[in-house]
């Protein structure tokens, strides 16, 4: 292994070559040698950074410093200042045109800064039905590395240290999940990919499976190796025919190249993948429900514990991860946990894909580092609100989340910050509402969804969501009294506290958060606001125990 500490990446793209980048590289090499740093710093010619008008570009890794318009004469300063002394060469840093502030890190630059694509890295770039294109971009090297150079423990450790958390909604640390499943003593284990995407407006998993199916296959094999499973299952909703067909093609191709099957990379490890189809029940995204469905049973959740990691598919230890989670695995293995954990916030590492929808200009998928603010996503990337209207709120976490208002737009978002402002990450749906949207109707919309999608197993979810919806309907039809608002509040907390699984435990969140932030809109529906019938004000989540008291 090389001891190289620093990589100096010099753009070797056509544009930069034309502006003398070759000479820059040569000078850098000479000076490094002269300073005796050739062991530590290495000059690498890279492909185009796509930023040709500022070329030649030099990037220092792992410092992630980005120099622009570097001439052959600047090589000396870069080596002497940056490499030897560890100081940035200010005059070569990129200047953002608007405020003349110099920015060094690549991600900070406006052109680049907003989006970083890890999970979506190959989407739109490679032909998903051609395994060679995936390999051309480094595909299956992570699997090869894991199988030939890493022990199972090392793989688990790498994922654990990367800080990757479940992208399906819960945010449970993936490495810990792998570790628990690995530690179970069992001859038979399974690894399942949860591709039962169901949040209204969220489609990142479909996009990954359609655009880069091999990344999921590779990751499942790595996971299988790590936890000791030789069988993988992709549980995918049957409404995704194209994703299914591409996944099938990809599995076939992987088998042909021996990347699935017996003794992969000539190791002792054998692994193969089956596809199971879901019938489009939202609740089957819950892992115990998903496993029941895989077994051919009714898709409804079971009480946990035991967790699937202990007793899952047909009673065997089973690890369930979401598509997007898996798509992050190969880069983590090839580039290392350190690289991954350098992205994001303290407790949420890496990036997250969001599906922007609603009253936003650039409807679509974006992938941003954790810690990006909602304002950046909605206004910089998303292009702001349609028709120049005023922003009112954004719902994250789909029907399980809550609304976030203007005052929180500058919160750097990650799993924990979203929870602290009354919403959640969820699978990454992001629905933007403008000043014309009525928030009671928004809550009703979500409740209608959860009511329809509740499996019916537990009384709180089955009847509770129905009654919540009915009260909301009564409110929006102008027939409700203050007492109905009280009832709505109280039932919301009951359903949240008493439901069996995450679906209905979170179902009242849209009500709770809209009541908190838009209480006036609820009151506006009440014809005669008679405070003797009810409280007439929202007393917030902090008093939820008191709400129970008032029963």
């Amino acid at each position: 292994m090389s001891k190289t500490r620093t990589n100096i990446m010099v753009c070797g793209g056509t544009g930069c070559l034309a502006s003398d980048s070759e000479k820059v590289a040569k000078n850098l090499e000479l000076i490094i040698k002269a300073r005796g740093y050739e062991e530590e710093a290495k000059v690498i010619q890279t492909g185009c950074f796509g930023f040709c008008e500022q070329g030649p570009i030099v990037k220092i890794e792992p410092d992630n410093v980005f120099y622009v318009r570097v001439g052959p004469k600047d090589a000396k300063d870069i080596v002497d200042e940056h490499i030897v002394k560890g100081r940035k060469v200010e005059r070569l840093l990129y200047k953002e045109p608007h405020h003349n502030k110099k920015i060094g890190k690549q991600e900070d630059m406006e052109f680049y800064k907003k989006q970083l694509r890890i999970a979506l890295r190959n989407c739109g770039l490679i032909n998903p039905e051609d395994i060679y294109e995936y390999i051309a971009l480094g595909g299956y090297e992570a699997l090869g590395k894991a199988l030939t150079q890493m022990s199972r423990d090392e793989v688990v450790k790498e994922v654990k240290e990367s800080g990757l958390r479940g992208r399906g909604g819960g945010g449970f640390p993936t490495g810990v999940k792998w570790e628990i499943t690995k530690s179970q003593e069992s001859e038979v284990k399974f690894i399942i990919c949860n591709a039962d995407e169901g949040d209204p407006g969220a489609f990142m998993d479909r996009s990954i499976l359609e655009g880069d199916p091999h990344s999921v296959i590779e990751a499942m094999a790595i996971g299988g190796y790590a936890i000791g499973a030789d069988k993988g299952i992709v549980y995918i909703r049957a409404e995704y025919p194209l994703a299914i067909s591409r996944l099938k093609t990809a599995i076939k191709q992987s088998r042909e190249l021996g990347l699935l099957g017996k003794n992969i990379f000539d190791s002792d490890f054998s692994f193969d993948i089956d596809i199971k189809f879901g019938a489009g029940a939202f609740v089957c995204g819950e892992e115990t429900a998903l496993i029941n469905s895989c077994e051919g049973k009714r898709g409804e959740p079971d009480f946990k514990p035991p967790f699937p990691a202990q007793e899952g598919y047909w009673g065997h230890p089973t690890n369930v991860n979401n598509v997007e989670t898996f798509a992050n695995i190969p880069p983590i293995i090839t580039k290392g946990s350190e690289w991954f954990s350098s992205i994001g916030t303290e407790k949420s590492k890496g990036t997250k894909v969001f599906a922007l929808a609603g009253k936003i200009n650039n409807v679509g998928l974006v992938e941003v580092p954790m810690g990006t603010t909602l304002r950046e996503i909605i206004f910089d990337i998303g292009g702001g609100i349609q028709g120049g209207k005023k922003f009112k709120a954004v719902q994250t976490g789909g029907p399980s989340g809550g609304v976030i208002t203007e005052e929180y737009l500058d919160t750097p978002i990650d799993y924990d910050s979203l929870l602290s402002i009354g919403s959640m990450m969820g699978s990454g749906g992001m629905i933007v509402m403008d000043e014309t949207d009525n928030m009671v109707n928004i809550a009703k919309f979500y409740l209608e969804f959860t009511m329809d999608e509740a499996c019916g197993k537990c009384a709180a979810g089955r009847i509770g969501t129905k009654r919540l919806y009915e009260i909301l309907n009564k409110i929006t039809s102008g027939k409700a009294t203050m007492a109905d608002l009280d009832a709505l509040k109280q039932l919301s907390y009951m359903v949240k506290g008493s439901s069996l699984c995450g679906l209905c435990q979170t179902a009242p969140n849209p009500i709770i958060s809209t009541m908190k932030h838009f209480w006036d809109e609820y009151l506006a529906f009440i014809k005669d606001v008679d405070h003797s019938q009810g409280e007439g004000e929202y007393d917030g989540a902090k008093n939820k125990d008191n709400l129970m008291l008032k029963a």
Partner: protein
Amino acid sequence: MKVKSLDELKKIREESLEKVNLREKGDVKGDKVEILVGMSTCGISSGARETLTEFIEEIDKSKINNIKVVPVGCIGYCHSEPTVQVNIPGQKPILYGNVKKDKVHEIFEKHLQNGEVVENMVLDIDFERA
């Protein structure tokens, strides 16, 4: 053929690298031109399949034989589907948005035949790939 080692995999990678380099950086030698069409469910439902067919027909008509049409996944620009990326060796790849079937001829004629980018349809790629 089965891949038996990391080295074998890397060899395959080397052999396949050419075409992908063209996509990312426009950085390859040779004269092979590529048209990438976003063919995910979203793209297809916005007419990507018709767009792709139209490109193939244009190529047939023009009798140019160094252009390859590649179906790829989506890049998430739902607001501008169908999306098409034109990769010409030595040039920065250009991404076009809202390329319905009727826009194909213009792109083909201007960009692919005459090397002139159709500016009003260009989309900025606002992300970095890991």
